[in-house]
């Protein structure tokens, strides 16, 4: 493969790569604001200037400049090489690039940084970007000096409401146009544009429109500074107190890779933001997914329910045993409901209980009803693990839950053991159908129709509180990490299934997640988290 040299280091590039892209892939960071690996090149911030050596045998392109000579106390003529923006310059075989290694580049970066901060309010204490702001980072790395401009800065509108989710601060904006390009290129809704010129320019929304498509929060995320803030996260937390877990978004079957940022001191999730994955979501997430982190704490089932009343886990398990008495007499009268909302591990545990121990014949799958999808990321299927359930329980394929209620009406079953709280059908129908049965036990993270209709409901952890594997619509099995501590009495779904199995007198032995995973894929060695991490360098633009 053809290579270029950056500061003496050979790095390979692909046809059509720009310098910054090749460097980014190799893990070399060339400072940048306006470039984003997923967006077109604008080359307007000039932070990525590098020095490119002339081709062999050709003179370097030099510019005549005046440089201050402190001894002569006057400007003297001097020459300096013409620098090029690395985000726009295409790679050519054998090209030599000086980035960190060039004094001219260092000087240029300091100067660009000073220019960007000339009119910047630097209200970092109020700014939500503080702690993860490029301006702060690069100032420290490349400038580190005060600004020389003495005049009052240009003031522009602050706190302009762009839409239901986004607030814009023109003073902080460095007009990198990332947000403009994002709405036009990725969200396919070009409603942002730049107004005015020079230091008066600002971002505006098209007249009579609001920034209200499905990807508004992404504009906030691509903004390298604190100019765009999301109303949801504004002023809620300071980023340096947050920890990030590598999760899989639960919003739909796309399974976008995400970080769940949470405050470990209060056990509260604060935001979801995309994690780069070329194959699944590239760099993006939709609003629905980014806000879905709230479901980790909202509407939760905090304690076990027996007949609608709070109970301890032990009592609930004992009650479940009573309810399910007689289950062994006729396995054909037992229906087991898997959940497309739960991880593979939870479903596998229930499947083991159903097939290996109880000998149940009929499997159903519950989940959230279909919703809106689009061409960009969102799937119509709003469940993160539909494919996972289908793969686990391949023969016979689980039937949709509507069929369960019909079968119950026909008097086919006496017992239901179910995972998950969400069903696609009318809650009333479900409740009236389930109330006819002898025993209904659900294991659910949320308070939903299935949990309410059950005689016994066991509180499961939500996805943010447990490690789990989810198979997205492409068939990729992806791991989601635990972020929060379990709320209330909640335990992981597979553990509850295992406890329930034991209570019923079966030899269910799952004690740790690793055991469940080993049982699922006996031949594969248990993948360690560190190996996972090493395989994918974490890059973010």
């Amino acid at each position, binding site marked *: 493969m053809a290579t270029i040299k950056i500061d003496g280091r050979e790095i390979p590039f692909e046809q059509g790569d720009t310098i910054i892209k090749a460097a980014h892939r190799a893990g070399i960071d060339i400072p940048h604001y306006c470039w984003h690996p997923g967006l077109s090149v604008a080359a307007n911030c000039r932070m990525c200037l590098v020095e490119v050596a002339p081709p062999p045998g050709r003179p370097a392109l030099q510019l005549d400049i005046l440089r201050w000579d402190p001894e002569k106390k006057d400007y003297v003529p001097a020459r300096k090489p013409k620098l090029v923006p690395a985000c726009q310059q295409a790679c050519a075989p054998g090209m030599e690039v000086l980035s960190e290694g060039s004094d001219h580049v260092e000087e240029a970066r300091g100067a660009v940084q000073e220019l960007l901060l000339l009119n910047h309010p630097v209200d970092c*204490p109020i700014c939500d970007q503080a702690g993860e702001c490029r301006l702060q980072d690069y100032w420290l790395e490349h400038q580190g000096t005060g600004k020389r401009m003495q005049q009052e800065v240009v003031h522009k509108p*602050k706190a302009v409401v762009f839409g239901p989710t986004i*607030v814009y601060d023109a003073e902080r904006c460095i007009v990198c146009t990332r947000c403009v390009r994002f709405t036009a290129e990725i969200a396919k809704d070009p409603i942002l544009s730049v107004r005015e010129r020079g230091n008066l320019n600002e971002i505006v929304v098209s007249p009579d429109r609001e920034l209200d498509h499905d990807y508004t929060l992404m504009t906030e995320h691509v903004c390298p500074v604190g100019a765009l803030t999301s109303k949801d996260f*504004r002023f809620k937390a300071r980023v340096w107190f947050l920890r990030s877990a590598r999760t899989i978004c639960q919003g739909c079957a796309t399974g976008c890779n995400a970080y769940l940022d949470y405050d470990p001191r209060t056990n509260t999730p604060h935001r979801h933001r995309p994690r780069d994955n070329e194959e699944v979501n590239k760099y993006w997430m939709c609003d629905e997914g980014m806000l879905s982190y709230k479901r980790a704490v909202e509407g939760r089932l905090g304690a076990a329910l027996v007949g609608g009343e709070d109970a301890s886990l032990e009592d609930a398990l004992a009650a479940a045993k009573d309810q399910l008495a007689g289950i062994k007499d006729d396995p054909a009268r037992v229906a087991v409901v898997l959940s497309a909302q739960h991880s593979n591990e939870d479903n596998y545990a229930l499947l083991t209980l159903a097939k290996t121990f109880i000998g149940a014949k009929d499997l159903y799958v519950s989940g959230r009803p279909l919703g809106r999808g689009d061409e960009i990321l969102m799937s119509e299927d709003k469940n993160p693990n539909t494919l996972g359930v289908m793969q686990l329980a391949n023969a016979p394929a689980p039937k949709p839950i509507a069929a369960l209620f019909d079968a119950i009406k026909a008097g086919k079953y006496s017992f239901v053991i179910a995972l998950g709280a969400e069903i696609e059908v009318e809650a009333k129908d479900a409740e009236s159908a389930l109330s006819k049965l002898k025993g209904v036990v659900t294991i659910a993270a949320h308070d939903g129709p299935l949990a309410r209709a059950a005689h016994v409901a066991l509180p499961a952890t939500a996805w943010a509180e447990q490690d789990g594997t989810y198979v997205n619509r492409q068939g990729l099995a992806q791991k989601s990490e635990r972020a929060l501590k379990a709320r209330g009495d909640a335990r992981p779904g597979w553990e509850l299934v295992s406890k329930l199995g034991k209570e019923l007198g079966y030899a269910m032995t799952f004690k740790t997640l690793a055991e469940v995973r080993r049982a699922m894929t006996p031949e594969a060695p248990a993948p360690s988290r560190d190996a996972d991490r090493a395989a994918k360098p974490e890059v973010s633009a």
Partner: protein
Amino acid sequence: MPKRTPSNPWTKPAGKPIEGKAIPRPRRTAEVQAYLPEFLRGMAITMRHFFKNTKEMMLGQKPDPVLEALNEGVTTICYPEEKRPYPERFRGLHRLTLRDDGSPRCVACLCCSTACPAQCIHIEAGEYAEGDKRRGYERYPKTFVIDELRCIFCGFCVEACPCDAIRMDTGIHATPYDSREQFIYRKDLLMEFTGRDGSRTSANPRHEPGDPTHPGLSREQMDH
């Protein structure tokens, strides 16, 4: 070879009698036995000081105990009527400074609670209410709590504050309360305190965006 633990010279080595120099007891002379002469000698010193101090006090010759603390003569003070001045930078209890309009200067950036090694500051940020001129672009502390009993008076919070919103220039000692609850200082109390000069504001005024004194800002487009 495993390292021997060095023996502790102050403990008796096992199985050995204690070695050492025998120190003779002081001789119990009649003078010491009869303690009265020693008592009188001590009393004499006390009385000498008593009369000297009384004389100096009467004649107004008492040196200023605050400024001439190292001089001869009376060096005690009648606290709390007399107080030694604290140095300029003495760290007393905290206070929150106010803007001219009475709002807290604090913008709930949490820099102080981040810097606090005792982790005794708890802040919740909030947005100003609908209609407030700072609504939308500025935050303020909804709650601001300092646990003064945990505080180690290091002053890091004051150093960390980018807005000069928290200060320890009240000149007040931690007061001896009798319950922990009383040491939990909340926002209202912290905003009540004044600096030693009696002012609630800070000596570093600043043109806040939104103030009429702030140059060049129009808020026409800023409905929120």
